[in-house]
């Protein structure tokens, strides 16, 4: 079909001006939109109130349907469990035998651990759960990997806090509404999590690849020290994510790269636990004005020796 020739609205001056003004508004709107985008790029927290409000308004819709979807996926599991019962039973028995031995070893290690920690005067218990919430929705039509949880600033959630499931790390909060917040999943391409291998303690950085997997980059150069099946936990280096949260398991190793998948699947996790931002005691600001070496770059210069402790910046 030939396109209609209605773009030119006849000889009416008024209609022609109307069309022209329509274009002016459109071009102005594009400029405004690009400006908003630029603001967002240079100030990630821009328009937090507006975005939080939108999050609050839309999350009940997702939350309502989530139980239905969970029921459907859960029933698939139940059916396959029924058919695989015998082989699963044998496998579980075998694993239980192994696990009991390891449990005894683990108890011994925990005792030793407690003893050593008392020796070092470290407080081992990190009782820092902010709140517990349900994951109700994730982005599925954009390049970002974001999820929505049903807890917001009224539950004490703040931007930056880490989010985990019982099985492992999920991500961190990037947007907060009153009753809902958005989580940047660890599989997002902008997410970097410092981790270390459980088997040999080698530190690495887990970067999201945007497709549900993680890229594990060892911090040391040389041969790839990881192998398939290696489990990674967060190392707690640099703060934010506390140490020893299970994070990822290696699924494929090549010469250049190590591919891992997160241990916690947000689609299956019943609950997400929001934790306080972790700050290692060694990184905490010291009394008396001396700045720790880890953030010496952005810290203000230490006060000259003569001024004493009255100028110590409280950060």
């Amino acid at each position, binding site marked *: 079909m030939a396109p209609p020739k209605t773009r030119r609205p006849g000889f009416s001056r008024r209609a022609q001006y109307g069309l022209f003004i329509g274009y002016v508004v459109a071009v102005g709107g594009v400029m405004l939109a690009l400006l908003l*985008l630029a603001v967002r790029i240079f100030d990630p927290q821009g328009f937090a109130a507006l975005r939080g409000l939108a999050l609050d308004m839309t999350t009940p819709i997702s939350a309502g349907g989530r139980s239905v979807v969970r029921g459907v996926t859960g029933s698939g599991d139940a059916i396959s469990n029924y058919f695989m019962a015998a082989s699963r039973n044998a496998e579980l028995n075998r694993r239980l035998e192994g696990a009991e031995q390891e449990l005894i070893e683990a108890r011994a290690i925990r005792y030793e651990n407690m003893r050593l920690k008392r020796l070092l005067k470290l407080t081992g218990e990190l009782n820092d759960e902010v709140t517990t919430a349900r994951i109700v929705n994730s982005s599925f039509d954009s390049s970002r990997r974001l*999820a929505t949880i049903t807890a917001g600033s009224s539950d004490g959630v703040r931007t930056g806090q880490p989010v985990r499931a019982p099985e492992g790390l999920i991500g961190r909060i990037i947007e907060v509404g009153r009753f809902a917040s958005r989580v940047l999943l660890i599989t997002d391409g902008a997410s970097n999590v410092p981790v270390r291998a459980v088997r040999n303690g080698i530190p690495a950085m887990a970067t999201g690849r945007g497709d549900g997997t993680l890229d594990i980059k060892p911090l040391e150069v040389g041969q790839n020290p990881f192998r398939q099946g290696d489990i990674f936990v967060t190392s707690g280096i640099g703060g934010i994510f506390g140490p020893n949260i299970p994070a990822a398991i290696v699924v494929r190793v090549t010469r250049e790269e190590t591919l891992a998948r997160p241990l916690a699947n947000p689609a299956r996790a019943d609950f997400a636990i929001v934790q306080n931002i972790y700050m290692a005691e060694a990184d905490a600001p010291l009394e008396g004005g001396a700045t720790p070496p880890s953030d010496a770059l952005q810290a203000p210069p230490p006060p000259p020796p003569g001024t004493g402790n009255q100028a110590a910046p409280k950060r």
Partner: protein
Amino acid sequence: MSRIAFNSAAVRRKHLRREYVPIVSTILACMLSLLPIIVSSPMIPDFGFLMLIAWRLLRPEMWAPAVALPLGLFNDLVAGHPIGQSMAIWTLLFIVFDIMDSRVLFRDYWMDWLIAAVAITGYVYADWYIGTLLGNTAGFSVMLPQLAASILAFPIVARLVLSLDRWRLAR
């Protein structure tokens, strides 16, 4: 089905239907991104965008380019894109469509699909590019499944829009 409106209420109702079906259907399509689905990679098309270009290609005279601004803002807020992303891309696309309409003399179903495919590719690329500006390091290959799904889903959405349009204009 009565073809004659007997009272003014029926006339008003039909007028409302004729005026608001396109906008409301696009808004509902945007809200599909609130579906409680949790996936680990982008695979599902942005139905709001598909609905928008399907309406635009079917009825070029219906919407002024500025209509895309509020619709884009709504999509940004609902889907969690950075504010301004859909606003800018959608409005720019409408202006490009207007220029194209004054140049291209002949359009059929296959041409529409081709134009939509180009528009979808541009949209997905822009979405990915803005993501990289915001710190995303994932490669563009991550978006390929979604790109293919969107292009293949366009005829279905176009069919839906066509039947909605028929219902909208039915007397």
